[in-house]
C-alpha cells in the first residue's frame, strides 16, 4: 500500500486540472450524454417535435439488415486495416533496424505519412487510383485488371483499406522500431551464434519478444479503423458505391446528417461508444498481464 502523503490543501491543484476537465466536459461528456439522450427520441418528419421512445431506436437497429451488414463490413475493414498496416510496419521496422547508414533519414521519411490529415491522405489515393487519370489503374491495366472503384464495391473497399492502412503504417512503425530496439543486442547475437539466420531470428526471437507491442497496436489500430478513417472514406468513396464502404462510423454520419434520422444515428453512435469502451477495457486489463513472457 502506498502511504498517503499529506500536502497542505490549496486550490492550485484543482486550478491546474481545470482546463483538462473543462475540455473533457465540453467535448466529450456533454456530447456523449446528448447522444445518449437523443438515442431515446424519435423526431417527426418535419423536425417540429420529438417523442421519447425508450429503446425503440436500438430495436430498430438490430432489425435493420443494412445496419448488420455495416457491422460485418466494419469488422472486415478494421481487421484488414490493422493486419495490413501492422504487417507492413513490422517489415519496415525490421529492415530499418538493420540499416546502418542514413538510418535517421529513412526513419524520418517513414514517419511523415502520420502527419498527413486523413482527408488529404484520401485525396492522394483518389488521384492515384482515379479510373481515368490515375497512375495505378494504368499499370493494373497491363495485368488485365479493369480498375473502377466508383463501380466496383470490392475495389472501393480495397482502396479505402489501402489508404487507411498506409496512414497508420508510420505510427505502427514507430512502436515496432522502439520495441525492437529495446531487445538487448546480446540476445540477438546469442541467437546468431546458436546458428539462427536473420529470418529465423526474426520469427523465433524478435516476434515473440515484441508481442506485447503487437497486442497494444492491434487495439489501437482497431480503434483507429473504427473511427478515424471517416475522413478517408468521406474523401475517397463517400461510403459507396451503394453502401459497400459504409462502415459504422460513416453510417452514423450518413443516417444522421444526410438521412436526418437523428434518433437512429444517435443510437448507432451509442453502440460505437460502448464498443470502444469495451476495447479500451480489454487493453487496460490485458495488455500488461496477458501478453507477458
Amino acid at each position, binding site marked *: 500500500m502506498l502511504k498517503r502523503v499529506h500536502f497542505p490543501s490549496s486550490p492550485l491543484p484543482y486550478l491546474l486540472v481545470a482546463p483538462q476537465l473543462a475540455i473533457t466536459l465540453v467535448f466529450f461528456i456533454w456530447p456523449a450524454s446528448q447522444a445518449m439522450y437523443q438515442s431515446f427520441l424519435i423526431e417527426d418528419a418535419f423536425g417540429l417535435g420529438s417523442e421519447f421512445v425508450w429503446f425503440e431506436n436500438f430495436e430498430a437497429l438490430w432489425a435493420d439488415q443494412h445496419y448488420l451488414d455495416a457491422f460485418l463490413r466494419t469488422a472486415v475493414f478494421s481487421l484488414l486495416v490493422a493486419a495490413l498496416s501492422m504487417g507492413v510496419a513490422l517489415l519496415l521496422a525490421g529492415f530499418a533496424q538493420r540499416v546502418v547508414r542514413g538510418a535517421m533519414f529513412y526513419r524520418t521519411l517513414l514517419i511523415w505519412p502520420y502527419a498527413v490529415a486523413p482527408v488529404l491522405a484520401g485525396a492522394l489515393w483518389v488521384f492515384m487510383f482515379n479510373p481515368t487519370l490515375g497512375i495505378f489503374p494504368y499499370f493494373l491495366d497491363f495485368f488485365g485488371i479493369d480498375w473502377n472503384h466508383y463501380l466496383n464495391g470490392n475495389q472501393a473497399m480495397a482502396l479505402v483499406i489501402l489508404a487507411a492502412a498506409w496512414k497508420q503504417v508510420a505510427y505502427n512503425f514507430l512502436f515496432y522500431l522502439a520495441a525492437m530496439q529495446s531487445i538487448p543486442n*546480446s540476445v540477438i547475437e*546469442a541467437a546468431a*551464434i546458436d546458428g539462427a539466420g536473420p529470418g529465423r531470428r526474426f520469427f523465433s526471437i524478435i516476434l515473440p519478444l515484441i508481442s506485447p507491442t503487437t497486442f497494444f497496436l492491434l487495439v489501437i489500430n482497431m480503434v483507429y479503423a473504427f473511427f478515424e478513417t471517416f475522413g478517408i472514406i468521406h474523401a475517397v468513396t463517400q461510403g459507396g458505391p451503394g453502401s459497400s464502404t459504409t462502415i459504422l462510423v460513416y453510417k452514423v454520419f450518413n443516417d444522421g446528417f444526410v438521412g436526418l434520422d437523428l434518433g437512429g444515428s444517435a443510437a448507432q453512435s451509442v453502440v460505437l461508444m460502448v464498443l470502444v469502451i469495451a476495447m479500451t477495457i480489454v487493453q487496460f486489463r490485458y495488455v500488461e498481464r496477458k501478453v507477458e513472457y
Partner: protein
Amino acid sequence: MAEIKLTDLTKSYGPTEVLHHVEGEINDGEFIVIVGPSGCGKSTLLRMVAGLETVTSGEIAIAGRRVNELEPSARDIAMVFQNYALYPHMSVRENMAYGLKIRKLSKAEINKRVEEAADILEIHQYLDRKPRQLSGGQRQRVAMGRAIVRDPQVFLFDEPLSNLDAKLRVQMRLEIRKLQQRLGVTSIYVTHDQVEAMTLGDRLMVLNGGYVEQFGTPIELYDRPASVFVAGFIGSPAMNFLPATAEEDGLLLPSGIKLVAGLAQRGQVLLGMRPEHLIPDAAGPIAIEVEMVEQLGANTLLHGTLSGTDHAMVASVSGHVSAEMGTVHRFAVTPELLHLFDPETQKRLEA
C-alpha cells in the same frame, strides 16, 4: 578440439584504430584470460573471435581454418554473455535446446544433451522455468548450459561474472575453471578483474589501449612484468613505483638513500616494489611515513609516503600492526624482488 591463432589482428572504427597488431597463439584446451582496464579493446577482441565484429586486417584461425569471413554460427563456438542473453520467452530447457533444434538434431539426442548439461550444472529443477524466475547465479548456469550442449570447439566468455555478488563470483569462478578442465575445451575469457584473471587463466593476455602488453602465465606476469602497466595492473595492492638513479654503488632513491644492488644499468630508472615484498626491518633502508592504516585481518596495509618526499608508498605487512599517523616505519627489500623499468619506454629492464 581446437587451437586459435591470431595473426597481426587490427580493428578500426572509421579512422580510429582500437586494436593494434594483436598476435597470439592459443593451444588446444587452454584457458586464456584477456584482461585489461575498460576500453582497452578486450571485448572487441573477443567479439572478433566470435564473429560479431568484423576484422579490419590480420587473420583469426580456429583449428587451422581461417574464420575471418565466416558467420558466427559457422565458427563452431559458444559464447556466454555478461548479461547472460537468455531468450526471455523460452523455458530453460528451450533455451538450451534452441541451437540444437536449428542444427536439426533428433528429439532424443537434444533431450539427452540437455539432460547431461543439466546434470553437470545441477539445474535440473529449473528446466521448465522461465529465465525471469531465476536468480542471477542460476541464469549464469543456464547460459553456460546453453554453451556446453552445443559441444563447441571454443568457449568465449565476456565478463560472465561481473553481474554477480562477490561471494557468488568466487564460487562460480571455481566452477567455470573446473568445468573447463573437465570438458577440455579451448576457452577465452574476458574480464577486467585481475584476481579473476590470475585464478582462472592458464595464460593471461594483458591489453592496454589496444596493445598487448604481455602474454604469459599468471606467475610470469607477477614475477617478471614486461611493462610498468602490467606491473601496476597485476597484484593487489598495486606495485609501488619510485623514480631512481642507478649508479655504480647502488640505486639512489629520491629520499637520498641508496639501495645496494649490483646493477648493470646506469642512469634514470623507474623502480618497482610490491607492497608485500617490503619486510619490516628497524634497520631497513626504506622509510615510510604512515598516513593511513587499513586492517584487513590477515594482513595490514600501511599507506604513506617515502619519508622526506611526497612519493606515495604502500606496504603490506602480515598480521596485525598498529601504527600511529605520522610515525616512520622502516622496511627492507630483497634485491631479487626489485623491478626496474625504463622511464621512457615503460618497458622492463633486466637487472
